[in-house]
């Protein structure tokens, strides 16, 4: 799982201050919502992960261009083929396939696109809901004040213990908590479900 960075929380969840090396799982909608004057620079050159369907693949001499549609929006992606392994990777993917795209978010004349360093075809479709749940979890991490995060982890169900989602699973009770905690509980319960491991 990508590492989480320490950021200054803002309501949108896309605030300045994260490490430029953090790989952020995002939806296209989140990228587009951040793309208005004064905000797009905060995402400029960030590394992002998107999951969606490849459409309109066009093969050029040294690069491949396509549109990624994740159900929430669409964004152009460019994948340079610097080595034979790059060409092999992209040749494995065709129009209509689900792909995981890791790359840098770039902007030019107000339009955003991805310069991908990895485009991998999805073979386990469980990766799709897991990606979007990860987007929600990272959004929560970035938007909730640290004091509230600490307080919520201390007040969760007395029979349960909160662990980061990438540690061992723990059963989770989300009932009876405050609205903010119950949402986080719901997300974490998915990650901590033993059956999901």
């Amino acid at each position, binding site marked *: 799982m990508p590492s989480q960075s320490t950021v200054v929380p803002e309501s949108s969840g896309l605030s300045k201050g994260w490490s430029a090396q953090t790989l952020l799982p995002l939806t296209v*909608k989140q990228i587009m919502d951040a793309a208005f004057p004064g905000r797009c620079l905060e995402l400029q050159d960030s590394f992002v992960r998107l999951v969606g369907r490849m459409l309109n693949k066009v093969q050029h001499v040294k690069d491949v261009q396509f549109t990624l549609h994740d*159900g929430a929006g669409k964004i152009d992606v460019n994948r340079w083929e610097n080595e034979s392994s790059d060409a092999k990777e992209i040749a494995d993917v065709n129009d209509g396939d689900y792909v995981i795209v890791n790359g840098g978010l770039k902007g030019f004349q107000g339009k955003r696109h991805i310069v991908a360093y990895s485009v991998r075809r999805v073979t386990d*479709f469980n990766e799709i809901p897991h990606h979007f749940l990860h987007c929600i979890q990272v959004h929560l991490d970035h938007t909730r004040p640290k004091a509230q995060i600490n307080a919520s982890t201390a007040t969760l169900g007395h029979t349960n213990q909160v662990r980061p989602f990438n540690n061992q699973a723990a059963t989770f009770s989300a009932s009876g908590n405050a609205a903010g905690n119950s949402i986080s509980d*719901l997300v974490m319960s998915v990650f901590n479900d033993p059956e*999901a491991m």
Partner: protein
Amino acid sequence: MDTSSPAALVNAETLNMFVGRRVRTVVQVQRNEGGVVVGQSSDGHQLSIKSAMDVPVSNFMEVYGIAENNQTIRAEVCTDFGPNFDPKPFDQLCKLASDKFKHMFL
């Protein structure tokens, strides 16, 4: 496939909120009745998928399409997600994506 219009992530319960709009869901195929796939939604209800592709029974199928009513989707794009898809995380995602975190998806 219409790439210009976002699709709401739904289960059977939240499908009701998006009748007439483009939606996206996953069902487990139960039977195919002459082009209409009857499947079980991630929250355990039956949905009818019109114009669905031929996906083997018991496999999971993702559907992009228009919600005709609270139990029927007219499919535009279908994808065979195979037999090993776990509907539970998807169901939790649908609940979150249609409520508190709707702004991240629509």
